[in-house]
């Protein structure tokens, strides 16, 4: 029989670890010991930690394979950018606009999550995976057709269906500013995101996901993952709880997207394609399904790894691929596991739940 670890300690260790890491890096940044390249990693790392933690809610906790998570990030990024830019005159304070952008990004992504989730969650397994993949592609293509600008009359939005229209078709005033230029993406975006904001968002995401998992709602979600029929038999509304997990995850991805989008001067919708979804999925799987702090660490390490491998130039992605395959083989092969088990004395209660 196997005894499970208490979860409260793991949660506090996660919060403390993230905070310590933040303080350390912040001190290094202030002390000037980070290169410019390293500084440019900080906000994206925070975004991808939030992405990984939120995807873990769907893949690890809820047990549904989603291959379109980047779509929600995209919705959050572009709606966040539009919010932040169109409020430039109304709200001069950058942090306040960032906060609003993140909230709007989360709300828009959550709404998209409901639209996608209601039909999709009727499907199971690989069929669900392929439909989330399809939705990710659709979201990317739709945003690719958006042309948005604002002037004193407010927002102007057109949908570039035939691919022939441009910003001039918005018929804005002279002072109007283009925000999203269709296939050229968002332009002239103010860089409102900061490492501190990223840290706060990571903490908020962690609190939301960990508290959710440790609550009645989280138990219901995990019950459905472990045994859907038994969950129904004890009176759990399966559709409702699968949707809660999916939409919460989408909202967090939207928030991460807004943070990410406001970190660059410009942003293309193709930045959030299938490969980005897969990238986040890799973080989640390597960090451990259902293991939240694992996702935090995996996202950090695997974001830095390809960057750090830049010294190998052309070989870096090849190396990344090899590392990925080897790690999967090493962690999932019974013989290799047995071999490692003999070399390293087994820890007590090795399996933890969060």
């Amino acid at each position, binding site marked *: *029989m196997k005894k*499970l670890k208490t979860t409260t300690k793991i949660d506090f260790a996660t919060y403390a670890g993230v905070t310590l890491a933040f303080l350390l890096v912040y001190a290094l940044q202030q002390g000037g010991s980070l290169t410019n390249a390293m500084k440019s990693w900080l906000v994206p790392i925070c975004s991808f930690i939030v992405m990984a933690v939120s995807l873990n809610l769907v893949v690890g906790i809820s047990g549904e394979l989603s291959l379109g998570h980047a779509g929600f990030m995209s919705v959050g990024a572009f709606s966040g950018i539009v919010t932040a830019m169109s409020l430039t005159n109304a709200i001069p304070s950058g942090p306040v606009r960032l906060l609003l952008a993140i909230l709007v990004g989360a709300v828009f992504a959550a709404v998209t999550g409901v639209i996608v989730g209601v039909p999709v969650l009727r499907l199971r397994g690989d069929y669900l995976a392929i439909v989330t993949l399809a939705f990710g592609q659709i979201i990317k293509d739709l945003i690719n057709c958006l042309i948005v600008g604002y002037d004193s009359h407010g927002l102007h939005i057109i949908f570039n269906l035939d691919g022939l229209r441009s910003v001039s078709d918005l018929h804005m005033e002279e002072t109007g500013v283009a925000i999203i230029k269709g296939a050229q993406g968002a332009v002239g975006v103010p860089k409102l995101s900061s490492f501190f904001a990223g840290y706060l968002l990571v903490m908020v995401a962690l609190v939301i996901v960990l508290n959710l998992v440790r609550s009645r709602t989280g138990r219901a979600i995990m*019950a459905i993952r472990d045994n859907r029929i038994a969950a*129904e*038999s004890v009176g759990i509304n399966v559709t409702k709880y699968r949707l809660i997990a999916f939409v919460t995850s989408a909202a967090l991805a939207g928030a991460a997207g807004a943070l990410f989008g406001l970190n660059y001067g410009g942003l293309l919708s193709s930045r959030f394609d299938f490969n980005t979804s897969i990238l986040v999925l890799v973080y989640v799987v390597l960090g451990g399904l259902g293991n939240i702090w694992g996702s935090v660490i995996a996202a950090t390490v695997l974001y830095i790894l390809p960057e750090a491998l830049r010294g190998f130039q052309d070989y870096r992605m090849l190396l990344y691929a090899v590392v990925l395959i080897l790690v999967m083989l090493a962690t999932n092969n019974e013989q290799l596991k047995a071999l490692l088990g003999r070399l390293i004395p087994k820890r007590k209660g090795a399996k933890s739940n969060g």
Partner: protein
Amino acid sequence: MAEKRVFEKGKMVPVPSQAIIPERDSDKSPILECSHLGIDFGGLRAVDDFNLTLGRTEIAGLIGPNGAGKTTVFNLLTKVYQPTRGTILLDGYDTAGKTPAQINRMGIARTFQNIRLFSALSVEDNVKIGLHNQEPYSMFTGILRLPKYWRQEKAAHERAMELLSIFDMQDLAAHEAGSLPYGAQRRLEIVRALATNPSLLLLDEPAAGMNPSETAELMENIVKIRDTFQIAVMLIEHDMNLVMGICEGICVLNFGQVIAKGTAEEIQSNPTVIEAYLGKKK
């Protein structure tokens, strides 16, 4: 409609002072009434013209040879399958069109022939999931950990421990459900079902894989559960000692048809039942 009243009401046992749940409404109307229940799989009539009335605190047995359709009856009652024909009244309410989750909230809880626990979760969490609709609070209360969260979680913990104590399983609370021995897993399934505060408990082969002493203990516990919770129990079982020992009414199913109903003595001497189990005398 003489056959509808074949089952005699079980002995009404007074609610003991240590009752875990408050005293139930104990009027004389039946808890469950099935009439002309049936389901077809393709051309096969898996269950046909199934009629049954169950008293509020009765222990009933559903027996029959393998493939007779016993589990299918449970699946019909809990709406895992929607019946092709017939009606099910639970406490007088029609259950047509309900989902399995709604059926549970209406008062039927069940266990499964092939154990279905939330095996990656702890024993305590399994029971707490059973308490899902008993100690409710909203998702936001849970995320923000408002006072109600702590209150309800504490109540759920205490209730879970209390329920586990029926089978002396409090010490296993922190263990992974899937790692328990077989018998303990079956008992945990019963506890989880009880946690949903049912008025009718369906047990699908509760003694399967248990040794004689475990089975004897289980028999005592089923009666104890009925007495403390004042609920009806219906069980599918191949262990005839158990069935004949505790079931006040027995229903025999063969090829989806009810072939006999009655008390243990009546069933044991019924020639149709003997034929179904042993074959025709040459």
